């Protein structure tokens, strides 16, 4: 099984879907001739040409709205946002139009659009370029929100997103683009293709003492923290990767809570009205009796993203903050 980067995995997924369905088209700023601002679309324009890979002007409301219109007619556009922070420029199209057209037409119209790109802090680019808006979009019925944590998940979830008949917003992570994971080639797979259904969480690490529930890069930080906790403190930590925020794998959440009876939510969203607030509510409503103690959280510190390279890493969930929080919880084995 080859080791490939998160970036390469996404690139493979896009290429395979372009090959599979002639209605799939990639549109976005710098996706074609420039080969992608983060090189996710590298080589695709050269291989598939102007019709399938299209450079858009810097006008998010215009081109995302255009993608929504084209998707209503049966085209399957995959739109790249250079940063998810720029989604706010296209919010009317992404929420008022993409999320609601199916509902307001009484089910007559589908909108099979994918919007993708990096959504995260940690690259020292200041408050306007560091948003993690999965809570914002996941709060809107009609939308699906996917947050892959590994190259394997990135490939499988992206392919599922493109095949989906509803709008799917895929939030990648800049800090993971260069990281490598094992991803099987199609020849190595029985099914022939890696497609991961949306709404299935993945137990990335089994454990008995505590459940960490996370998504995106926080899964990676949590796995590292779990190693430290095992090695230094003898704690056996389970790490559940949500993979998609909507649909949400509630069964997997409740199962891990019932197994370990202790929960830490790790989420790069801020704590106020974030994804972790939602997960905590679900656990409180449906598995309260299974808890040995309060549900705790590690989130991005509740301020706009600070620029300072010396400080920003501490604003985000990281191994140290996760380990410290777990030790605070004083879990009895």
């Amino acid at each position, binding site marked *: 099984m080859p080791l490939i980067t998160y970036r390469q995995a996404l690139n493979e997924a896009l290429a395979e879907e372009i090959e599979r369905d002639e209605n799939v088209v990639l549109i976005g700023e710098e996706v074609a001739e420039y080969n992608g601002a983060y090189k996710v679309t590298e080589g695709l324009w050269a291989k598939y040409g102007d019709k399938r890979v299209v450079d858009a002007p810097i006008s998010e*409301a215009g081109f995302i709205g255009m993608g*929504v219109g084209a998707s209503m007619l049966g085209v399957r556009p995959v739109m790249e946002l250079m940063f998810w922070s720029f989604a706010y420029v296209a919010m009317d199209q992404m929420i008022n139009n993409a999320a609601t057209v199916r509902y307001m037409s009484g089910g007559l119209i589908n909108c099979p659009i994918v919007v993708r790109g990096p959504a995260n802090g940690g690259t020292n680019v200041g408050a306007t370029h560091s948003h993690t808006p999965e809570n914002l979009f996941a709060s809107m019925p009609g939308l699906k929100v996917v947050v892959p944590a590994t190259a394997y998940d990135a490939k499988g979830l992206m392919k599922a997103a493109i095949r989906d008949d509803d709008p799917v917003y895929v939030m990648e992570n800049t800090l993971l683009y260069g990281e490598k994971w094992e991803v099987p080639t199609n020849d190595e797979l029985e099914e022939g293709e890696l497609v991961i259904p949306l709404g299935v969480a993945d137990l990335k690490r089994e454990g008995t003492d505590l459940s960490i529930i996370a998504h995106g890069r926080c899964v990676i930080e949590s796995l590292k923290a779990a190693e430290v906790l095992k090695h230094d403190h003898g704690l056996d930590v389970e790490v559940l990767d949500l993979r998609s925020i909507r649909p949400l794998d509630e069964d997997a959440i409740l199962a891990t809570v019932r197994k370990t009876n202790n929960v830490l939510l790790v989420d790069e969203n801020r704590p106020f009205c974030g994804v972790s607030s939602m997960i905590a509510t679900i656990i409180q409503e449906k598995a309260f009796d299974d808890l040995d103690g309060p549900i705790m959280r590690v989130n991005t510190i509740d301020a706009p993203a600070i620029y300072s390279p010396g400080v920003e890493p501490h604003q985000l969930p990281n191994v140290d903050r996760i380990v410290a929080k777990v030790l605070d919880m004083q879990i009895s084995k």
Partner: protein
Amino acid sequence: MPAQNKTNADKKSACSKAVDYSQAEINKQLTPEDKVELYRQMVRIRKFEQISLKYYNQGVMGGFLHLYIGQEAVAVGTCSLKGDHDHYITTYRDHGHALALGMNMNECMAELFGKATGCSKGKGGSMHFFAPDKNYWGGHGIVGGQTPLGAGLAYGVKYLGHKGSCLCYMGDGAINQGAYHEALNLAGLWDLPVIFIIENNGYSMGTSQKRSSAHPEEGLAARAEGYGIEWDVINGENIYEVRAKTWEAMERAHNESRPTVLEIDTYRYYGHSVADANAKKYRSKEEIERYQREHDPLKIWQNILIEEGHLTEDEAKQIDKEAKEEALASAKFAEESPYPEVADIMDDIYYEVDRGTDKAKHGKYFFND
């Protein structure tokens, strides 16, 4: 207050009065029956609107009601040109286009009443009519928000290799929205077969064009020049002119895949919505009455048909009567139809949830479902 459309009439189409658009090729193809049918469609829209206003005032409908009365020649003229691959999308003032494209009054009126038999099952309301089987893509509530969608429908037409177009309507207020300019840039840049139609009734809600749009003298469509897009101004009270000039734009879309911006000057007799039903706070009674007296598209078309010998006054009265009966019957249908069930709130949100597929079993979509 000076009449906005008087200045509009001095714009690019000033010479239009001298041109006999009845002799345009697309209009010469009309049979007498076709011409009477155009009249019937205009009358149907007006009666539908009048009856809906009556019921709205009785409090049986929710939300807003943006009436199209006074603008009928625009929808009927442009929609009468539809081919298999021509698509239509508009703003919240969407009843006229819906009827002109063949939606039936029952499903439209029932939607206003919020009934399960409505075209959007009571989920969209007045501003959100849709009929994709008739190439009608709504019905959109945010001013200017539909303009990138219109460009996208045109992109779809082109991508799928069809010889077609998208007619994307908006009011004059929409041209000041950023989304409109982005859509125009994309249309000009990517040769999209889209026709942006500004139904210029002189007022963005309660604010006159002069108080809302910079440099209105030359015409609102003239901004298209900045994007290298052809534009024209049309007298929206004459259906011959509407059809002839819109067809020119559609041919440009069909044959050259190039966009056009058309400004169709028209007038609404009622307010922006029933919230300002009289609309007399921002325009004079005299102005409204003058338009009704001198510029009414129904009367103008009726007179042309009578002059051409295709219609008698008695026949016109009969058409009027039938349309009113049809509209009243649709109100009865709507009244007698059931509301959606409370459980129906949860339908039509996700494709596979509605179909109960295996995929939908993978994760929870809804809180507390």
